[in-house]
């Protein structure tokens, strides 16, 4: 019997199996942000163990509330900043150089096929887009990761999703993953790795694959995962070109990180998504999904484009394509947060920021802020937001607020009309 990609990564990283089905893996990366790391740091200090297993494998960023909005968030920033300095963590991204963790760490080339990665953030599953096993963990697992470079997991049962057909114009990775979560439900993949394969995934950019993997956790998944290919190599190339003689050499090495043909899957689901329409959530769970056509006309108060799900350059390009030459409705306000400084400058150079501004958007610095109602766009009681983020939980963007998750194209179209609307890019 062959092995899945996740099993291969486990086999290459297992350092102990102290109990049946307890796989202690060595970690290639421990990612840290200022919300879940400070309590790990203060606990390590209290235990007299203020050290790190390997400062080159730890990457840290301030991203959830930045610049600090009050004394408490300033203190969180200070704790992680001082800790990074004390422990000689060179890759620490402070105000001005910081971006949303799951956008900036791949952009910097910190994620590679075959890696094991943890972070105190549930959307760490995003990095599986590169053929890595990447799992969100709590602060205690993070603390042990920082100190010892290990983390314990159950066997990675894998749910394989084969996406056949081709996406219609105006339909994106976000629509695909919303459709999949609707099919799986919010706990349909609990304790499983979701492997995304098939011609639709093969044809996707890294940005789109990250959008797919990002929301694996919304179906309960431990990690999303895609097979590395030339698209992966092309994305990473600026950061790996000194390590490999050629792109082909990099691809040859990365190609060990795919599942065997006779791998043992927990379940295989095949969907032909050629007829898939743009999708949107209603209610308070990410599996409450309808087509945008069925929700057309639903009024919203705010539009938010950004986050680790959809704040990357291709997302901003699509939104700008819809917005160009239009103004947002007088009945709404709209916010865009490019996910990293790199994305922000690309968007500036391409004239995208100007399009957003002319349409009436507020352009913020890179931050997670509005997605979880921590800063930069909190909703008032009873308000609704058309959002490109990943969670529509009750009160997520502000107490008493509602969130409708959708693609950047749909969000931009909704900004223009003030009501949930299909983008003109979708001709279906």
């Amino acid at each position, binding site marked *: 019997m062959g092995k899945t990609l996740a099993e291969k990564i486990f086999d290459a990283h297992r*350092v102990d199996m102290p109990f049946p089905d*307890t796989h202690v893996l060595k970690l290639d990366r421990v990612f840290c942000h200022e*919300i879940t790391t400070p*309590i790990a740091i203060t606990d390590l200090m209290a235990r007299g163990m203020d050290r790190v297993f390997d400062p080159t494998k730890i990457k840290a960023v301030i991203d959830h*509330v930045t610049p600090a909005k009050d004394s408490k968030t300033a203190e969180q920033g200070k704790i992680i900043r001082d800790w990074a300095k004390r422990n000689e963590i060179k890759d620490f991204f402070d105000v001005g150089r910081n971006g949303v963790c799951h956008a900036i760490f791949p952009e910097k080339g910190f994620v590679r096929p075959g890696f094991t990665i943890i972070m105190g953030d549930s959307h760490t599953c995003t990095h599986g887009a590169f053929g890595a096993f990447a799992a969100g963990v*709590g602060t205690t697992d993070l603390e042990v990761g920082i100190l010892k470079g290990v983390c314990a997991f159950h066997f990675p049962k894998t749910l394989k999703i084969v996406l056949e057909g081709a996406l219609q114009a105006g339909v994106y990775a976000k629509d695909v993953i919303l459709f999949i979560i609707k099919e799986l439900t*919010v706990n349909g993949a609990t304790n499983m790795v979701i492997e995304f394969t098939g011609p639709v995934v093969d044809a996707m950019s890294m940005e789109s694959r990250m959008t797919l993997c990002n929301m694996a956790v919304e179906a*309960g998944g431990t990690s999303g995962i895609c097979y590395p290919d030339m698209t992966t190599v092309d994305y990473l190339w600026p950061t790996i070109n000194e390590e490999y003689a050629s792109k082909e050499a990099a691809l040859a090495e990365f190609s060990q990180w795919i599942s065997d043909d006779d791998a043992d899957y927990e379940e295989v689901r095949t969907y032909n998504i050629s007829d898939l329409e743009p999708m949107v959530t209603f209610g308070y769970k990410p599996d409450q999904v309808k087509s945008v056509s069925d929700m057309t006309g639903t009024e919203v108060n705010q539009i938010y484009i950004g986050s680790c799900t959809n704040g990357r350059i291709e997302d901003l390009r699509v939104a700008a394509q819809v917005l160009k030459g239009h103004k947002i409705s007088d009945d709404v306000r709209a916010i865009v947060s490019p996910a990293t400084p790199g994305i922000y400058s690309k968007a500036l150079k391409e004239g995208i920021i100007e399009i957003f501004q002319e349409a009436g958007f507020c352009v913020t610095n890179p931050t997670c802020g509005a997605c979880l*109602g921590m800063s930069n766009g909190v909703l008032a009681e009873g308000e609704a937001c058309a959002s490109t983020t990943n969670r529509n939980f009750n009160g997520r963007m502000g*107490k008493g607020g509602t969130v409708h998750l959708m693609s950047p194209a749909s969000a931009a179209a909704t900004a223009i009309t003030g009501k949930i609307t299909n983008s003109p890019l979708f001709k279906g």
Partner: protein
Amino acid sequence: MKKFSGKVLFLDRNDINTDEIIPARYLTEITKEALKPFLLEDLSLDGFDVTRDIEEKAAVITRENFGCGSSREHAPWALEVNGIHVVLAESFARIFRQNMYNCGMFAIELSKGQIDYLFETYSRKETSLEVDVEASHLIIETEDKKDIIEFKVGGFDMTLVREGGWVGYADKHY
């Protein structure tokens, strides 16, 4: 080892998420104790009164997929600082479940039939629960009724409960 006995809070809903257990606006706190007043503040559940129902509780009994969503360990911490060290459910989200054991607390899965029975039999009365760690069973009782229910927890999770969490264990072994 922590204390695993006391009064039960019944939360009759599936998919109670970590934003409901502790909203993100409180994630700016840097001590666990500071989370105490905010437990379940955003829970949407008919009949639940956050100001009345949490006090003096030591256990939660709920339905499917408890703790879904964010990785925030603030959710188990908010339970912990309110004295709630054990949650019984049909199922848990992976990260929440592991966070509970990593803190030396119980997230125990029971069958749908068992959970249905507990809600039917006990949820309308003042009920207390005790986890007998040695015997791997739960004792649940109210004034006129008592049940003893066996449960299964893996070797790793039970070790974390006995040793008070993952940091001490990992420091000893790795």
